[in-house]
């Protein structure tokens, strides 16, 4: 393990490490654009130039350590060079900050303020290029903002393996371009390039011009799209920045979803399904309890449900694998003895959806099969047969045609569905973004999600319902 010196401090370095890795690991920050811990080293941005005694300046991201070397990351020479590199990068970079989504989380902005801060030295017009290039139906490319760090192309070659991006032409008229048969649109990991782009060149169409990032807060959560359970950040408007408008939906909707870095599960990536969680979570919700379609209070619905449970001889429950660890345990505890419980698979792969690959995507499109399997049986056998007189369905994905004609139905669901109105007792329940909880992924890793929004009044937390349903039925007066 060679010992090297960074800014006078002696540090231990791994023999195969680069000076950049050692510097970052020991608290000596070195700015970089093109370097990314998960991608190959290209060394093209030249921001990480450091000074080595006896050797002059060179980039740190490609510099092997050698015992006794003395590295300076903030000398006057280094500072002057960083300023110059930023002069070059901003030479043709459009001053789009006022209309660029990346403002507030832009590496170029941050470095400009920290390391340069001076106006451009150029007296010439900037080189122009394409402003709204259609990279795919999800991603817009602004070539003028692009600093050609090649993170996006490397991602498609090394991580998602779609080989979808490359560089056309050369010099300062080079442009990132997608390959002409357009597989970026079919790359389910494409949106990760928007995250790793250090500037506002790559923009997500979903998020385009929706909100300034400093008005949003990221809440840690878990993607329910498959049993990988990638940890994510769900971005939504900060309460103190709620818009005062007649339509309050902007204050209660998901602005965007980004990865929450997780070395144990998904690293820094997520697939596009996680980006599109609004498609799942913002479907029309079921708002109030009903008895055979007739709106009632929660208390009344609970009473009727308890009556049905008390009267049933062979009640069957179909448990949702979208339930959190807490909800599933609560169900088991409260109703596990009352019902014949079976595990239901709420979601199956949709048409056109990638089923499985060796990166992140798993075939089981539900977040908590692992915990559910631990506690309940898989439905294999005829869980419901002629003798069943009460079916409690929790969650989506159940074919109500399977319910015997004479059996009663208690249905716990979040979303608006025609079957809600047909159930003997219908109780709307909260979704993941309205409570805290945990999922267990297929590897046994437990991840937490936090609430982003308030649930509406008619909606109950499933856990509360399970407790209530396990209490004996009240005697009607």
């Amino acid at each position, binding site marked *: 393990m060679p010992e090297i010196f960074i800014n006078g401090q002696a540090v231990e370095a791994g023999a195969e490490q680069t000076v950049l890795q050692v510097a970052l690991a020991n608290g000596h920050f070195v700015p970089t654009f093109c370097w990314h811990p998960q991608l190959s080293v290209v060394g093209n941005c030249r921001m990480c130039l450091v000074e080595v005694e006896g050797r002059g300046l060179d980039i740190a991201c*490609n510099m092997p350590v050698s015992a006794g070397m003395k590295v300076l990351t903030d000398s006057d020479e280094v500072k002057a060079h960083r300023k110059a590199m930023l002069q070059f990068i901003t030479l043709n970079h459009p001053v789009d900050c006022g209309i660029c989504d990346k403002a507030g989380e832009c590496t170029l902005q941050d470095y400009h303020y920290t390391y340069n801060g001076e106006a451009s030295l150029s007296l010439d017009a900037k080189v122009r290029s394409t402003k709204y290039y259609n990279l795919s139906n999800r991603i817009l490319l602004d070539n003028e903002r692009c600093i050609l760090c090649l993170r996006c192309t490397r991602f498609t070659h090394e991580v998602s393996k779609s080989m979808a991006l490359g560089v056309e032409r050369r*010099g300062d008229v080079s442009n990132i371009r997608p390959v002409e048969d357009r597989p970026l649109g079919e790359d389910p990991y494409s949106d990760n390039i928007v995250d790793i782009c250090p500037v506002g060149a790559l923009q997500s169409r979903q998020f385009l011009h929706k909100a300034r990032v400093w008005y949003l807060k990221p809440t840690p959560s878990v993607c329910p799209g498959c049993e990988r359970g990638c940890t994510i950040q769900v971005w939504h408007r900060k309460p103190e920045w709620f818009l005062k408008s007649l339509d309050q939906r902007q204050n209660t909707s998901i602005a965007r979803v980004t990865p929450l870095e997780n070395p144990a599960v998904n690293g820094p990536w997520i697939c596009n399904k996680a980006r599109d969680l609004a498609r799942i979570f913002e479907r029309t919700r079921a708002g109030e309890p009903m008895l055979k379609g007739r709106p009632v209070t929660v208390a009344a619905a609970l009473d009727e449900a308890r009556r049905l449970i008390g009267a049933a001889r062979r009640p069957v429950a179909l448990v949702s694998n979208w339930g959190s660890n807490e909800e599933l345990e609560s169900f088991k505890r409260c109703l596990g003895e009352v019902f014949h419980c079976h595990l239901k698979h709420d979601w199956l792969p949709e048409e056109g959806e990638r089923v499985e690959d060796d990166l992140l995507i798993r075939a089981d499109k539900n977040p908590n099969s692992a915990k559910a399997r631990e506690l309940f049986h898989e439905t294999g056998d005829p869980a419901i047969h002629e003798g069943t007189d009460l079916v409690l369905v929790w969650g989506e994905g159940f074919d109500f045609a399977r319910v015997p004609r004479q059996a009663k139905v208690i249905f716990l669901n979040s979303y608006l569905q025609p079957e809600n109105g047909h159930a003997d007792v219908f109780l709307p329940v909260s979704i993941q973004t309205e409570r805290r909880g945990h999922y267990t992924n297929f590897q046994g890793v437990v991840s937490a999600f936090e609430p982003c929004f308030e649930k509406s009044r008619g909606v109950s937390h499933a856990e509360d319902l399970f407790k209530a349903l396990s209490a004996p039925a009240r005697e009607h007066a």
Partner: protein
Amino acid sequence: MPGRQLFMTFPVTATSHSLAEYRARGGYLALEKALKQMKPSDVTKEVTASGLQGRGGAAFAVGRKWQVIVPDDGQPHYLIANADEGEPGTFKDRWILENNPHLLLESMLVSSYALGVRNCFVYIRGEFDLPYRRLAGAVEEAYEAGYFGTDILGTGFACDIVVYRGAGAYVAGEASGLLASLEGKKSYPRNRPPRLTVKGLYQRPTVVNNVESLSNIAGIIRDGAAAFKAVGTPKSPGTRLLSVSGHVNRPGVFEVELGYPWMKFLEEDCGGILHGRAIKCVVPGGVSSKVLTGADIANLNLSHEDLWDAGSTLGSGGMIVIAEGTCMVTLLRILMRFYHHESCGQCTPCRHGTGWLHRIMDRIVAGQGRPEDIERLYYISKFNDGTTICGLGDAAGYACTGILDKFRDEFEYYIEHKRSRFDGNLECLRSS
């Protein structure tokens, strides 16, 4: 004749490049000697002892580059002759390719033997059509004569060669850019480490040498290192092919014994300046070498050490002679346009810097220069020096500051008066 000759020892005719005539001149004797009387390490030792310096630009000792190759390390090694010759003013490798291609081939065979190379390549710029056809013809002749293939000269040595054509990119003349191109990709140079002699073509140990550098090997092996060192100077052994162009009466390729007096060369061998004009300056070795005035070169000899001492270099051997009355501002603008056009675009300082340099020069030449422009040119050059992935960025800066250092007054004049002191003239059309 500018000193003793090692290359231009025969009259060039319509057939002098053929195998038969090459053999008649003593061709393929070096190969015979190397394969039958020497071990590979003996060959490398001889090359190192000769002190041969690279003739592509850097004058890096060829033997020292070769010594990084570890024989018998169990992996393929590659040897590549760099025939991309794109440096403006340089056309001397072309002379070898057209007129003595077998010299290169024999030298590559001997070098491959020394370096444990089974497959060697010549990377030739795409525009060189006649040189390519001569070389390809020579390769065919050599294969037919059994000099390439397996069991060469019955010694068990095997070697194959592929002549690989470029397609129009100056940056493919940079060794790692060349490798990228030979791997079938766009010509993006690579960062070092690792050195190409450690991880080169397809990540295997690779030696890239200039055509002329390699072409010296056959002679060194056939006649010995001592004979080579007896020519030239102690610090610059041997001869160099110099391509001379510009305002001289006899432009062309000359073989110069290193150490030969510069002015004598220009006046006698190159026929002096057109129309008897005075020398304004000379670009000694490729356009990134610092220009030297007539006064600077008056007492210099054509050797690596003389030019290094004078703050310049023999570089690629591309000498451009510039007569009085030439507008250096207009000339520099062409060079900045060239670098801008050829920048691969990978790294920040060169990608933006070469464009910036070009745009400033365009503006000055159009009569819209500003006083700050000169400082800007220096700024851009300074921060392209030692900060880039390959030497193209540095070269653009050197070309710029070299001319600015010597002719700043012309630039100041142009900016102030919005016109050239010499009417933008680049030609030498009549006596002063």
